[in-house]
């Protein structure tokens, strides 16, 4: 008889985040990246709150985007009340 190879222990359609947390390289989707103007930023955090991917890292006096995941949507730049964030083409980096 041909042997069958079974990989998982579950009988039903279970996933287990402790065994495997999936993650996509969404940083590669970006065509523009947010660039902070530290002078203008007053650390209000609205960019972090509105960021759909919640990828703004709190540096305690400002927020910086985690470019591994930032999709480059530009919401942070649009919502910044002090216009401290500019979206610059990825080609410039």
């Amino acid at each position, binding site marked *: 008889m041909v042997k069958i190879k079974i990989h998982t222990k579950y009988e039903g359609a279970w996933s287990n985040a402790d065994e495997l947390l999936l993650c996509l390289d969404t940083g590669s*989707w970006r065509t523009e990246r947010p660039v902070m103007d530290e002078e203008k930023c007053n650390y209000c955090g609205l960019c972090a709150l509105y*960021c*759909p991917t919640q990828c703004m890292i709190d540096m305690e006096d400002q927020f910086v985007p985690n470019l591994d995941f930032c999709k480059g949507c530009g919401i942070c730049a649009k919502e910044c009340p002090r216009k401290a964030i500019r979206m610059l083409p990825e080609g410039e980096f």
Partner: protein
Amino acid sequence: MMVKKKKLSKIFDYFRDEDPFAGGISICSGCPMELLLRFMSKVLGKDIIIVGTPSCSAIVLYGQNIGSWHKLSYYGCLMTGVASSATGITRYYRKIGKDVTVVCFTGDGCAADVGFQPLSGAAERNENFIYICYDNEGYMNTGVQRSSTTPFGAKTSTTPIGVARRGNETTGKNLPFIIAMHKVSYAATATLSHLEDLAKKLIKAKEKKNEGFAYIHVFSPCPTGWGFPMDLSIEVCRMAVRTNYFPLWEAERGKFRLTHKIKKSRPLKDLVRMIRKFSHLTDEEMGMLEKEVHERYRLIEGVTQMMPLKETP
């Protein structure tokens, strides 16, 4: 060195737990639903069971084989099954005497269309869970088809603009109002531009679900399906509130309250011209959309006066 004048927004104080989602998940850039998912999880905390349905959110709410996109416990059911599955989970936990926060997370196509019967049933029975509907006014995951919350005139892939027919021909269901009229423990509308309002409503829903059904209808525009630049998502939400296209209110057991009154509303055109799905509207069609928006607002304004809900301190 410039002095930091402002402190961190107080909205951060509403977060209970870390974001349980992986850094990169496959939701379109600029989608407010992704923000809703992450924001909701941080506010409600990690001790919840999410019940999802096939929709844009299912792609990340459900895992792939053994892997998961988040650390939350979830139950991934079919579109017809979200409210009933949540009932099953809640009832079992009630039977064994354990408190549990079960959260349905689904789109308008499920809530207003194919999953409407179980939703209405669970609302009528006042089941003890939270139901969050993110309303992007159509079936976005399958490629922007019309649903029963699609507004009048909107262009979708099943209501295209042609010589014989022009866009969606109905005005759509006023779903949050319909659910509120079930006299559920809690019903509210919210959107992603008004995050503190949303956070308060999430927390209230978590409290109120101990008494019965808690429903939050979240306006969640779709940059891909509606046709607007992805950086405008939050601005579209904001404009929908400012034009009274999507008024923010809450209701408890059939008593209503506006949570964000607009002193002087902006003309609906300011919203409509941001969105390509409305770009073909003639003056006459625009007038009909305005009429519906106006009527809906008058309805909610009327009930807040007739059946007022006192603000809880």
